[in-house]
């Protein structure tokens, strides 16, 4: 009887999800409520978790709660600490959640809500969550080894080296594009600049407090930091309203770019207790708090989606970024559906904390489902804006022109309506001089969130505070990735430098620290500066590169996962990872090829380089460029981007070819199906934990 009731419940959940999807897909012309989208996503996640993740846990990996995990066997009170699964879940989620799933879906909303929603849900269920869980389970069976180590040991040295270089390349592109999002958010915005700027001394104050005033009282210091953040919000407003101070903090994009580079460098060389650690605590609090608040806000308001299901821009003529819905919707959404970066975390801290193997299902698969839900909420927040407002914020100057009148005219030509007065009123309402062409996704997401929060909690006058609160939250997120990423990049460079000259590897030798930090900042700074000075807004070229890079890393992870499944003698289940791998290969290869070779200069890097070359020679410059030198620089930048995309393409081919060779040899019986798994010999039991 109970069994029957349970079966009926799951049939009901599945049916509700199917009906919600049908409602979304079939609505034409009328606005649909966000409730449909949330129901469709939630029901899909429930069904996938209940059935698919269990299939992977039981059939593919045969996860066994009695098999001792590295946390138990190698327990050292430091890295390896058996931890309750819900705490690991929280820790893992806080580590994987970043700005990616917020920005990607916002940009992809130019195609309408449907393509984004479908890929976020289908992609996570069959791809992203599978990847995270498989890598986590594989790492748990291998004493918590990293993705790079597993690639080298399971596939071979070529794959291992490719993985290593890919990670470095991805870090560079990731940090530069995220920094560009911050620059676009803060340029000519004294309020935002002051608020975000103040978060740095606040973190340092927390660091000092934790070291000397009340040592190690992390929660206490975080609460003080949170209170100061609210103060920073008001301080920003005060500055923006002061006629003498506001101009001082009204900065140009290039100035902000230099400031961010200086910040990244400083974060990499100063002690971690002073800046990085307190910022991380603060960011984790704000992250979890805002995600929860956004979920509650959306549930309370259940706003209608103003964006149509599918816009005309699926044909590739969209102003936010160039390219058709295939493959660019899949590349743009990035982290909300599948993120290779998560494989680094699932093979980093998390596997060393799992108390039981079977927890990999909740932490790996479940954690990614929640991340995907965040992406769905970001999509909702972008789609509650009317299309006119959405495009006014997200389209570059080159498409909109400099004034609200030119913007309204351009948007009318695309078939959406918005008046110049509406655009001015909205900017006034959020306390900004202008919202036009604030590309990068963060500002339009902040407007959407402010809209939802002010409707949920009342008080239209609070729009400006909510907007800047949302901006602060996003920037805090991004800057914690930027500073910690720069430091990690420095260590990676030092590790490589060690092979050239041993002292370069010394992590506390000042010249080596300064040199490697400066080099890493320069590597991402070049791309950031190129993006800031790009008349097309920079996001158009850099975000796709990031998406391709992130999916390349996912391809590496899925290759490792497939190899491990094949070597476990489970080749009949290899489709679990081969299916998403094949899709990613098609998406990244076609995306990269289009970005390099397309004859449309908005889309293809090489075509764009030729256009700028011609402009530099003829002296007839496109709008936004000062002189022939600037045009020549743009041509160089486009060729650099083409080279980076080529490198990513070659890496995908190498890693897949190298893995496939291994699979064929094992399946054909020419190589023993032996893995580097730590054997389960029965000597250890989970309860005894006889390790050390």
């Amino acid at each position, binding site marked *: 009887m109970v069994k029957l009731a349970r079966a009926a419940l799951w049939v009901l959940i599945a049916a509700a999800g199917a009906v919600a999807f049908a409602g979304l897909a079939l609505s034409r012309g009328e606005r649909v409520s966000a409730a449909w989208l949330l129901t469709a996503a939630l029901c899909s996640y429930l069904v996938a978790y209940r059935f698919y993740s269990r299939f992977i846990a039981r059939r593919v990996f045969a996860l066994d709660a009695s098999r001792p995990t590295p946390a138990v066997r190698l*327990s*050292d*009170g*430091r*890295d390896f*600490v058996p*931890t*309750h699964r819900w*705490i690991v879940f*929280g*820790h893992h989620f*806080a*580590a*994987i*959640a*970043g*700005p*990616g799933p917020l920005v990607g879906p916002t940009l992809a909303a130019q195609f309408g809500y449907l393509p984004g929603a479908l890929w976020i849900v289908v992609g996570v269920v069959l791809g992203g969550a599978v990847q995270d869980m498989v890598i986590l389970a594989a790492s748990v069976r291998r004493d918590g080894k*990293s993705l790079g180590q597993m690639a080298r040991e399971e596939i071979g040295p070529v794959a291992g080296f490719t993985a290593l270089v890919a*990670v470095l390349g991805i*870090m560079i592109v*990731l940090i530069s594009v*995220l920094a560009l999002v911050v620059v676009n958010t803060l340029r000519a915005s004294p309020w935002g600049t002051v608020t975000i700027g103040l978060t740095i001394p606040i973190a340092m104050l927390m660091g000092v407090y934790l070291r000397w005033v009340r*040592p*190690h009282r*992390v*929660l206490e210091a*975080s609460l003080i930091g949170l209170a100061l953040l609210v103060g920073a919000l008001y301080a920003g407003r005060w500055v923006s309203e002061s006629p003498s101070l506001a101009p001082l903090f009204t900065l140009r994009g290039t100035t902000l770019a230099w400031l961010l580079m200086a910040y990244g460098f400083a974060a990499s060389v100063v002690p*971690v*207790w002073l800046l*990085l*650690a307190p910022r*991380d*605590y603060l960011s*984790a*609090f704000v992250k*979890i708090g805002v995600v929860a608040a956004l979920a509650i806000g959306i549930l309370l308001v259940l706003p209608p989606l103003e964006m149509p299901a599918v816009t005309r821009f699926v044909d590739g003529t969209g102003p936010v970024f160039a390219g058709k819905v295939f493959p660019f919707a899949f590349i743009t959404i*990035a*982290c909300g559906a599948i*993120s290779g*970066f*998560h494989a*680094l*975390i699932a*093979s*980093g*801290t998390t596997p060393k904390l799992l108390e039981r193997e079977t927890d990999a299902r909740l932490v790996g698969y479940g954690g990614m489902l929640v991340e995907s839900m965040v992406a769905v909420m970001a999509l909702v927040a972008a789609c509650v804006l009317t299309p006119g407002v959405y495009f006014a914020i997200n389209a570059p100057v080159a498409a909109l022109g400099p004034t609200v009148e030119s913007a309204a005219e351009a948007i009318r030509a695309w078939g959406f309506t918005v008046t110049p007065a509406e655009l001015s009123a909205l900017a006034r309402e959020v306390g900004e001089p202008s919202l036009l062409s604030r590309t990068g996704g963060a500002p339009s997401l902040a407007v959407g969130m402010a809209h939802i929060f002010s409707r949920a909690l009342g008080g239209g006058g609070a729009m400006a505070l909510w907007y800047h609160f949302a901006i602060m939250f996003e920037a805090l997120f991004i800057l*914690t*990735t930027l500073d*910690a*990423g720069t*430091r*990690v990049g420095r*260590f*990676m460079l030092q590790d490589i430098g060690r092979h050239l000259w041993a002292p370069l590897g010394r*992590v506390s030798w000042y010249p080596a620290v300064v040199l490697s930090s400066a080099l890493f900042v320069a590597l991402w700074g070049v791309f950031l500066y190129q993006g800031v000075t790009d008349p097309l807004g920079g996001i158009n070229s850099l975000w796709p590169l*990031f998406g391709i890079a*992130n999916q390349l890393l996912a391809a590496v992870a899925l290759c490792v996962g497939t190899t491990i499944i094949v070597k476990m003698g489970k080749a009949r289940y290899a489709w679990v990872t081969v299916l998403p791998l094949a899709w990613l290969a098609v998406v990244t290869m076609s995306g990269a090829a289009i970005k390099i070779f397309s004859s449309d200069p908005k889309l293809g890097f090489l075509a764009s380089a030729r256009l700028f070359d011609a402009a530099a020679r003829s002296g007839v410059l496109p709008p936004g460029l000062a002189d022939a030198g600037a045009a020549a620089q743009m041509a160089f930048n486009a060729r650099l981007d083409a080279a980076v995309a080529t490198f990513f393409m070659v890496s995908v081919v190498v890693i897949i070819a190298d893995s496939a060779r291994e699979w064929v040899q094992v399946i054909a019986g020419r190589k023993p199906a032996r893995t580097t798994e730590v054997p389960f010999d029965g000597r250890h039991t989970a309860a005894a934990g006889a390790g*050390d």
Partner: protein
Amino acid sequence: MGAPRSQGAPRSLGERLASAARALRMVLGAPDYERYLSHARERHPEVPPLSRDEFVAARLRARYERPGSRCC
């Protein structure tokens, strides 16, 4: 955290708060010195354990040396 322990109920409000705070610190990934200390005393009683300051400094340094603590 500073709340007094009550004698009667198996879990007083103070104890609940303390365990919630501990869970929160673990989610944040803050260094857990108590855990280390009990581990060190139990498994390696012959070696003097690190001081709290040494332990925390070492954990924080280690956290920011590898990719895998931070994501996009």
